[in-house]
């Protein structure tokens, strides 16, 4: 589904990713772990198409080179990023935002846009699955939300938009155990044979709930080690310094 070949990025002549290779197939869950500053969030941004980086190398998504594809087109093609710090947008009703986003993406996929009633039914169902209070949907987008609420809102958006390739950028940071479990359940229940996940995290604890097929260590802009889920547990014990 996603092939990254020799990806190099820099900002103001500072190299961040330095020849990263990664191959993710449909149905797989990959985790990327690594110390601070190793380029994990940069990778998430680059995959979403964020501007402001010098990029070389290749990113192929379902056989298409993403090089010249804009952020919104990538989103419409099925790439989703759950943000580490979801943005607050004052004055914008959460429901309204979700509906606009969903209908934009449905339109791009050639699906019929949902009317207000069908949308509300759908969002009610999905938020109930995540234990999200409905009141929260009529509040301004992420404004005054707790860290946990913001992250749950990201997972809700993921469930609504049904993307094919999902990047979770440190979604576990700032979550208490209950919220962590809800987020993990949300991810697990969304796993199918036709989608794939890239989970960026510092800690093993999220991987206790979401079992990855592969764990990669990102260090100095490269993947330095790849293993199965036991690699995460090992790292938790020994730290990155010993690699």
């Amino acid at each position, binding site marked *: 589904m996603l092939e990254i070949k020799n990806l190099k990025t820099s900002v103001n002549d500072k190299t961040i990713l330095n020849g990263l290779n990664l191959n993710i197939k449909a149905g797989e869950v990959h985790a990327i772990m690594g110390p601070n500053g190793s380029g994990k969030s940069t990778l998430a941004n680059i995959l979403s198409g964020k501007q402001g980086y010098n990029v070389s190398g290749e990113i192929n998504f379902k056989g298409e080179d993403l090089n010249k594809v*804009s*952020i*919104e087109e990538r*989103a419409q093609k099925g790439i989703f990023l759950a943000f580490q710090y979801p*943005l607050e947008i004052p*004055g*914008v009703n959460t429901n309204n935002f979700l509906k606009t986003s969903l209908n934009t*993406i449905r339109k791009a996929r050639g699906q019929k846009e949902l009317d207000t009633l069908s949308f509300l039914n759908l969002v009610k169902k999905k938020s109930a699955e995540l234990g999200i209070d409905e009141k929260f949907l009529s509040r*301004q987008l992420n404004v005054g939300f707790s860290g946990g609420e913001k992250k749950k809102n990201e997972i809700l*958006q993921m469930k609504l938009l049904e993307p094919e390739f999902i990047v979770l950028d440190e979604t576990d940071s700032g979550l208490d155990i209950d919220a962590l479990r809800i987020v993990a359940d949300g991810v697990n229940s969304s796993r199918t044979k036709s989608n794939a996940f890239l989970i960026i995290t510092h800690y093993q604890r999220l991987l206790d709930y979401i079992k990855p097929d592969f764990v990669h260590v990102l260090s100095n802009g490269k993947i330095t080690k790849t293993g199965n889920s036991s690699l995460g547990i090992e790292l938790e014990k020994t730290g990155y310094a010993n690699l």
Partner: protein
Amino acid sequence: MKTQKDINTNQEYKYGFSTDIENIRSPKGLNEDTIKFISNIKKEPKWMLDWRLKAFNRLKILKEPNWQKPKYPKIDYQNLYYYSAPKSSSKKINSLDEIDPKILETYNKLGIPLQEQERLSGVAVDAVFDSVSVATTFKEALTKKGIIFCPISEAIIKHPDLVKKYLGSVIPITDHYFATLNSAVFTDGSFVYIPPNVRCPMELSTYFRINATETGQFERTLIIADKGSYVSYLEGCTAPMRDENQLHAANVELIALDDAEIKYSTVQNWYPGDKNGVGGIYNFVTKRGACRGKNSKISWTQVETGSAITWKYPSCILQGDNSVGEFYSIAITNNHQKADTGTKMIHLGKNTKSKIISKGISAGKADNTYRGLVDISTKATNSRNYTQCDSLLMGNQCGAHTVPYIKNKNASSTIEHEATTTKINEEQLFYCNQRGLNQEEAVSLIVNGFCKEVLQQLPMEFAVEAQKLVSISLEGSVG
């Protein structure tokens, strides 16, 4: 429609067409003859002409103010027409069907159908074309409730007592240069009188259209809400695209008596000039409301997206005890547009309250100033003001300024002022893009969110239109 081609190629200002129509004009120039011409063609009584001439005499000793932030080249007042009207409008018409089809077509294109079968339901419209009112809808339905809604030129003839009593009572003819100029040469506008204890059953609205070239529009609106009455009034404005700057100097006076409420909304979309700042309307307007009675309320809501220069301060004089004044404003400037706008809240009565919510949005090379006065007099005990001024900047070549003047002359009153300036946040845009929205949709969403507190004050029929206008005004301003 001679500029038909321009409209199709220019998405940014879709009201930029002009109507090719035969006009009756006054001779060019600002002098007594012009004033007599206007008064004569409108068959005004002598007292009205005398009033105008008194204003004109005053004007001779007044100077144009120059303290505002936007500067503009000197206006040659002798090179303007002060009256221009479609020739067909001089004929007396008995029903809307007799209106010149070209004028009807113009209003249809503007989305303001005047014919019976296509009217906006629940909205009565007075349509002002250059210097004359060409149609007023729902007149009879309103008359049954004793409501007067007619062109001011008609009110001068049919309701002289009301006009004499209230015209110039909020904006005196000596007020300042543009207000005095308007008093001397005003041509048309709307007159509204709501009798005691009547709640006006529909939105009243005036649609101002500038069409003729080299012509100033000097409209005059007077709204009186008698004791215990309520009215909601909305004005909209558009003009053709031209490379000349046209002057629009209006006076609007509102009077609310005991327990009465007036809600006045403006959606101003005069031609803003092109991308390089050529052409556009000078929108120099004096709007003032007097909460004359106890427990009265006046609420101004404005969405200012057009004009090369917008220079106006819709104000409230809170004379009656417990009266309330409100000002909700969105001012959007893009390209080379300039705005210097805000309000004045003059607290004179006891327990008076005022609220100011201003949202300024600046993009391109535009400049946006909020200027406001809150003045609580010694007698206005236990009065309160709350002001919130938020500015949003898009790009790094535009400007936002906040200039509050605050005077509190008694110890029992309180004034709160909050101001913020933010830049449109790249991360917010990225977030929206990542959810599938393109740059323009994202900007529109964020800006409409920023303006929400003001947009929700608009009558429902116009809120959707205003939201679209907010988005269109900012097209191409990011990215």
